[in-house]
């Protein structure tokens, strides 16, 4: 079995991890413009990590993971970002693995976990529907039991990377007359190559296809692909993000964008303008203080504690700061903000428009910021309903 990294001091782990990643992550994959590369585009990096045993940082070691504590996992993610490594299709690693480890049968674990590590199964997440976004419990994709097979009908949308996945874990309604809407929902593992599945990529504002629509027309799913209990999938579905919620609030995106803004502003002489300087100073301090706030939550994890609902504050702040920084980039660009492509700034090109458009998304995904505010109002401020 792999070594127990939690026994290794933080700084030593950081250095070992960093050195190996730096030597093994291919140069042409660093700092990719694409936020969500397809599996084939980053397969060599995926397989290299798998061969080293470093693909699944949080899975227990007996399942081929690194078994990292939350504190060590943060180091893993930090160094990954610092070295400009590309995001790999990680729904299998980040969502399906933990889901099965917690709720799956022994047979499911034995079958699916190795297929994730080998890259044979590439997973996507079927939660949102056209009429079930923030209000996820109103989902209507149905599954009816016919003997020992579920027959699935309906549609999912905003399914990230479905066009390069071959499996989907999907939330379906198995009971329609429940009084509590959260009841009667079930989690199924569904083979996307089954007859009756159709995947249509959706082009986003940046001209890329990160997400898709997925249609199910009488798709037959064996009963053994049920995760947890039938009708009780809501709890299962909600549990997939534990301490990883902190990463939704990580300062990575605004950090990168502020550095780009700084370069653009230097090239354009914007720092000579006191009005710009004042706006820049505010953004810089917002980023600095986000670091302090992130550290407050990270400390909780390092001490072995669990995150509360208050961590939503980070998600709101970081995504809205990202937007404000990229909006400022367009202001600094002046009339050049009319261009679709990158802006020259000395020896580098600044992808101002790309970042501006990209910054629209994080305030929406992972629970829109309005939903995050509802959560805080209820769970933290305990306001009347």
């Amino acid at each position, binding site marked *: 079995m792999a070594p127990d990294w939690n026994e290794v001091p933080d700084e030593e782990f950081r250095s070992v991890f960093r050195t190996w990643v730096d030597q093994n992550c291919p140069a042409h994959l660093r700092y990719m413009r694409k936020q969500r590369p397809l599996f084939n585009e980053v397969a060599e990096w995926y397989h290299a990590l798998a061969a080293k045993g470093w693909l699944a940082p949080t899975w227990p070691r007996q399942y081929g993971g690194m078994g990292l504590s939350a504190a060590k996992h943060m180091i893993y993610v930090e160094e990954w970002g610092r070295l400009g490594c590309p995001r790999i299709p990680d729904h299998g690693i980040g969502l399906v693995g933990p889901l099965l480890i917690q709720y799956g049968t022994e047979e499911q674990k034995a079958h699916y976990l190795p297929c994730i590590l080998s890259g044979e199964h590439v997973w996507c997440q079927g939660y949102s529907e056209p009429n079930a976004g923030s209000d996820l419990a109103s989902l209507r994709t149905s599954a009816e039991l016919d003997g020992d097979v579920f027959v699935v009908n309906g549609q999912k949308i905003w399914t990230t990377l479905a066009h390069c996945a071959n499996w989907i874990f999907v939330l379906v309604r198995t009971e329609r007359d429940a009084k509590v809407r959260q009841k009667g929902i079930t989690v199924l593992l569904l083979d996307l190559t089954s007859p009756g599945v159709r995947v249509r990529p959706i082009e986003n504002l940046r001209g890329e296809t990160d997400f898709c629509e997925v249609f199910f027309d009488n798709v037959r799913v064996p009963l053994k692909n049920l995760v947890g209990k039938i009708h009780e999938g809501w709890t299962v579905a909600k549990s997939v993000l534990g301490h990883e919620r902190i990463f939704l609030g990580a300062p990575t995106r605004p950090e990168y964008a502020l550095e780009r803004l700084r370069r653009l502003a230097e090239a354009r002489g914007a720092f000579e303008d006191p009005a710009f300087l004042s706006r820049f*100073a505010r953004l810089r*301090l917002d980023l600095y203080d986000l670091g*302090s706030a992130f550290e407050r939550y990270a400390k909780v994890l390092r001490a072995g504690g669990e995150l509360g609902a208050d961590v939503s504050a980070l998600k709101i*702040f970081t995504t809205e700061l990202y937007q404000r920084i990229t909006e400022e980039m367009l202001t600094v660009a002046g009339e050049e903000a009319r261009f679709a492509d990158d802006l020259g700034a000395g020896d580098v090109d600044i992808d101002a428009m790309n970042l501006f458009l990209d910054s629209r998304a994080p305030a929406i995904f992972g629970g829109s910021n309005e939903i995050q505010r509802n959560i*805080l*109002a209820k769970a933290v*401020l305990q306001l009347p309903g």
Partner: protein
Amino acid sequence: MPKLMLDDPDGTLVMLSDSVTGFAGRFPGAKAMRERRGRGGTMDPLIWSAMAEAGWIGLLLPQECGGAGLGLREQTVLSEALGRALIAEPTGAASVFAATLVGGASPGAERSRLAAGMTSGEIIAVPAWTSGAKPMTARSVNGSILLSGEMRFVDAARAATDFLVVARSADGVILLSVAADAPGLAISERAGVDGGALATISFSDCAVPADRVLSRANRCEDLLRRAILHTRLALAAELTGVASKALELTIAYTSDRVQFGKPIASFQAIQHRLVDMWIEADFAAAAVVNAVDALQAKDDDAAELAVLAAKARAGEAAFSICRRAVHLHGAMGYTDECDIGLYLKRAINLNAMLGQPEQLRLEFVERESGYGRGRT
């Protein structure tokens, strides 16, 4: 509500913070603020001596001159609790700033006299270091020092027994203590926004014995740097306390106030405003903790940045939270009888002291990257 999350292995910090709650039972903050305003801004000597008795004045004085030997963590927690309880005494100026100046002075009889008196409450030493229309100069004549010039924005001048004055001398700058009743010293006060008073002090050939000199330096900045640093941190903590208490009162009020058959805090428009206020208070608390950590890590440059950020964040948060708190109290919030207005006024005062957020942010980016050098 957001609180400062500092390690507290032996429970000292909780005890300190609880003792402020107990104190506020005897001397309710809002009542004291209104009474002080009624007296024309003069502080209540009873409250100050009770604070000294509690061991809170001159907390940062080193043990060797009679201080408690407690550190910035304790001062931060104390200041936050004072802010929450709205104990609007001049703690920043007459305790934190003064103690840092006196603690950093050359050992000697005057330093010991001030330290002992501050701790017991018999001496109220108030710093006067912001130059007014006439710069402060000091010249030596017959073994005395003659001070001339003007100092502004001096807190609690009527109650002070001594002023800690910075003046330019023939060979640099000096810090010295001046008895409040010294001939040639005149106090002129204006009402402060939160019911206190701010004085301009004029010195006209005011004679001070030479043994009252506490420190000498080449530049003003060298004399004041640490005092400004510590006081900004304490003000940031106090502002965080003001902010989180104002938010707490607003949550209670809006949860209680019924319109259209429901508590107004059940409306999403109100809820999202309250959540945004909570996030600001949470970030302010995190910024203050970061500054305490940075100061304890003994990296001067990093500590300066962290304190600038904390004071800017906490000041902005307190001012903006209190503004919205007044609004969310509806017409009641606009009345003098409702306490929420006192929180707003206290926040304005502390936010404007030792640098408003805009100025502090510009200072931060100048220090960090050199942007706008010479402008601030």
